[in-house]
């Protein structure tokens, strides 16, 4: 249960950790677009190298990244296989309706590398940014949306609370499961239907306690006069620094490089 690392903050002291979270979020979006704009092998390799550099710079153990990849690897394999078998063009190997073409192989490689880069990048963001910083930055970035009467602050607050309670709920699940197992609940064996039924004794107490927590939290917030975003000041102000400027410049250079590589090596698809 506890092995879910996707979206877990790993405190360390690295360049990436110290960047302004707003810059990190925007860079993530830009780089994800970049990953999908790497159209040939040369630019793809360049992008992958760049992603690896970020991973190394983040000073988060590689093991953590591998763990978050592990969760997603099945999806990668399946999509790669689908791409492999549904390529167009001259088949180089055929068995019944299944055929493998060069285009299919290229597609599979591209999808595979792209998805892995995607996971690494987003893990790098969540590993190096605490959930509070993250939602804080999101709130600031979405501020312009208030013009359309979107309650940005409330959305951000909901996200903060949700993130905050993920580990708590996991811990609670562990505890309740242990308590029901102690009463002889059998959760490891039987067919699917039985296993789903075996979850009832875990889910009901879990929901009950989630609602109880939500209620208590609401009361606690009201006791401290919380009334939404209007007029609320922040304890931690975000400031853009020199480091962030350097990051933006490097980011732009990388984007330029990928575009150039895309154009000059267009033959290497």
């Amino acid at each position, binding site marked *: 249960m506890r092995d879910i690392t996707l979206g877990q903050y790993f405190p360390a002291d690295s360049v990436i950790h110290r960047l302004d979270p707003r810059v990190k979020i925007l860079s993530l979006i830009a780089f994800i677009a970049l990953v999908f704009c790497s159209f040939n092998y040369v630019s793809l390799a360049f992008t992958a190298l760049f992603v690896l550099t970020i991973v190394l710079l983040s000073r988060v153990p590689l093991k953590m990244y591998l763990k978050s990849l592990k969760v997603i690897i099945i999806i990668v394999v399946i999509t790669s296989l689908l791409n492999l078998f549904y390529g167009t063009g001259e088949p180089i190997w055929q068995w019944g309706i299944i055929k493998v073409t060069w285009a299919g192989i290229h597609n599979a490689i591209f999808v595979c590398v792209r998805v892995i880069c995607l996971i690494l990048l987003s893990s790098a963001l969540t590993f190096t940014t605490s959930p509070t910083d993250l939602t804080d930055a999101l709130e600031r970035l979405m501020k312009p949306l208030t013009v359309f009467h979107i309650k940005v602050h409330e959305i951000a607050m909901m996200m903060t609370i949700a993130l905050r309670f993920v580990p708590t709920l996991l811990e*609670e699940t562990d*505890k*309740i499961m*242990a*308590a*029901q*197992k*102690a*009463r*002889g*609940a*059998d959760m490891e064996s039987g067919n699917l239907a039985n296993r789903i039924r075996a979850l*009832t*004794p875990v889910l*009901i*107490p879990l929901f*009950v*306690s989630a609602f109880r927590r939500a209620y208590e939290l609401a009361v606690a917030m009201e006791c401290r006069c919380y009334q939404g975003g209007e007029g609320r000041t922040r304890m931690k102000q975000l400031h853009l620094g020199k480091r962030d400027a350097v990051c933006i410049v490097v980011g732009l250079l990388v984007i330029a490089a990928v575009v150039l590589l895309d154009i000059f090596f267009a033959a290497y698809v």
Partner: protein
Amino acid sequence: MSILSVKDLTYVYSQGTPFEHTAVDKLSFEIERGDFIGIIGHTGSGKSTLVQMLNGLIKPTSGAVYLDNINIWDKPKEIRKIRFKVGLVFQYPEYQLFEETVEKDIAFGPTNIGLNEKEIKERVLQAAKFVDLNPELLVKSPFDLSGGEKRRAAIAGVIAMDPDILILDEPCAGLDPLGRDILLSQIYSYHKERGNTVLLVSHSMEDVGTVCDKVMVMNRSRLEMFDTAQRVFSQGERLQKLGLRIPQITSVIDELIDAGFPLKRGTLTVEQAVEDITEYLKREGRL
């Protein structure tokens, strides 16, 4: 022959990560059938981890637990049977209630054992009686009970499995003083009536002193002492060094002994103290 024994029992949380933590470190002890044993120790000393290993909820990192001289992990497939024999009531057990009625919830354990309906019914009624749960409450939803009633219903859910060994992890935490005393005396009379083995984890030295024959003292993942309650609680200074203390009445008597009165060290209950003091005063002709 001991009913439960452990040898070099060790448990390490998050092994192989930077968060590695040895919660139980090479414990060995034997428990005799019919004992009422108190387990005390500072927070984080590994009590809860230990009791979860005793009923096979977590598998020891090394070492073994023997129930009736059989290693409980010999047949991992049958570990559920061990859990029926060694009943464990968790801290704040009321959070495990889930059924529509209290009766059904108490029946969860016996149903998992695979008993027939008549036996289940019997067990439920009996368990409810042991914890003094009003039969009217049995048809109610467990979520409509008061905190103390929920606690008792949850404990009944484990007692209903009729385990040979009953382990309670801080059963009285968060109850009012009267509720604590009542629950404790119910557990005690259950033990007396059934003659089964009970392990009680508690932070209240008074509770442990009143009901337990033997006391296990945990300190920093290790077993520091395991002896009769009287002998453990006659070592006030040693316990103090471990962040624990002795029952209030015991320390009162200790002070009197230091002041020169011929009383017994390790007096555990107020009744005993009153008896001894009256006897002494009578002997002196002052009463």
